[in-house]
């Protein structure tokens, strides 16, 4: 059970990250969230953009603070212009 739950959490988090960046940071819907290269790729760039905008430490990685921020209630208007 713990293994399955952990896998489920990870999937949920990935889905959350993808949706968050799509909704509020104009990440293209066709961009895959699993980026193998460590410091590049549209998702990492968008995570950086999001962290910078929201005043988080800019790491390009979804650390616990970034994930916690993504889970907080917020306004539905995107943070960046289209």
């Amino acid at each position: 059970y713990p293994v399955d739950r952990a896998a489920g959490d990870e999937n949920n988090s990935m889905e959350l990250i993808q949706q968050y960046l799509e909704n509020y940071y104009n990440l293209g819907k066709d961009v895959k969230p699993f980026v193998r290269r460590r410091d590049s790729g549209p998702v990492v760039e968008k995570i950086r953009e999001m962290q910078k905008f929201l005043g988080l430490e800019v790491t390009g990685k979804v650390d616990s603070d970034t994930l916690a921020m993504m889970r907080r209630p917020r306004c539905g208007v995107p943070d960046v212009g289209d």
Partner: protein
Amino acid sequence: FTTFPGMPKWRKTHLTYRIMNYTPDLPRDAVDSAIEKALNVWKEVTPLTFSRTDEGEADIKISFAVRDHGDFNPFDGPGNVLGHAYPPGPGIYGDAHFDDDEQWTRDTSGTNLFLVAAHELGHSLGLFHSANPSALMYPVYNVLTDLARFHLSQDDVNGIQSLYGGPPSDSSSDPVVPTESVPPEPGTPAACDPTLSFDAISTLRGEILFFKDRHFWRKSLRTLEPGFYLISSFWPSLPSGLDAAYEETSKDIVFIFKGNQFWAMRGTEVQAGYPKGIHTLGFPPTVRKIDAAVFDKEKKKTYFFVGDKYWRYDEKRQSMEPGFPKQIAEDFPGVDSKVDAAFEAFGFYYFFNGSSQLEFDPNAKKVTHVLKSNSWLNC
């Protein structure tokens, strides 16, 4: 702060709003009050004014909805997205939508409607999101906001004033409200006299007016130094030595009392049909004058203080409430003396007697600070 791409903004300063429906979470008057308060947040720092309409088209239409609600931006159930709004423009533009899967509350036990509405209406006026975490326009809901002392951050003020400029009273070219202070002359009251008392105090469009004899100080919370003016320079037909004053913020009217008469003013314009007798408000003939008055924006009720008693007037029903007068000290513990003047700010009532001032928390029902009367004048 940022504005929307293309910097859309309203090309007029008077806007209409309409509350299209209500959340079942709150009484209607609580929704009305939250929206009005949220609009006032922006009104106080801009030339914008708002009036409510209950039918037909409005610049800003406010609605509660769940999931798909006809704008291709469906809500997402409880949590995460609380609301969204559209930048200025025709049709859906300017409208604000609130996710009714949230638990809307007056306080912060659920999602505070005023706080979210103030943010969304910022979008309705043309502000995009701010990256400043202390700004109202920061995109993430801040449950720790102190509602009693809520104020816009400087970033929000800079943002909205980049679109609309400051309030008319900030402008020396304002044709309605004079802004030039009069120089003090012999016999005029001194702001920092430790024995200074006030005749009457009222808010006016986000400022505070402290009346004394023929003059008044005008204190804006945005500027350090209060202005000092002759009452007659604003309102030539008013007498000096006023008894009481209060602002009915939802009507943009200041009521001023002297003896058995009272006047209604919108800005510098005395309203038609005034002065009227105070007994038309429902006072008994034994009441010859009012000592002080304060308007409760939330409840839309005005407290009138006479001697050691007070009356409560329902501004919606336009009638004095039954069961009054009551002893002031009974319902305002700690306010034991006659009240010279009173006003409301940041959710507190401030009661003045002679050179003393009491800050009273109406929720906790207790005096929270004892101050000198002239503390608002930077003394």
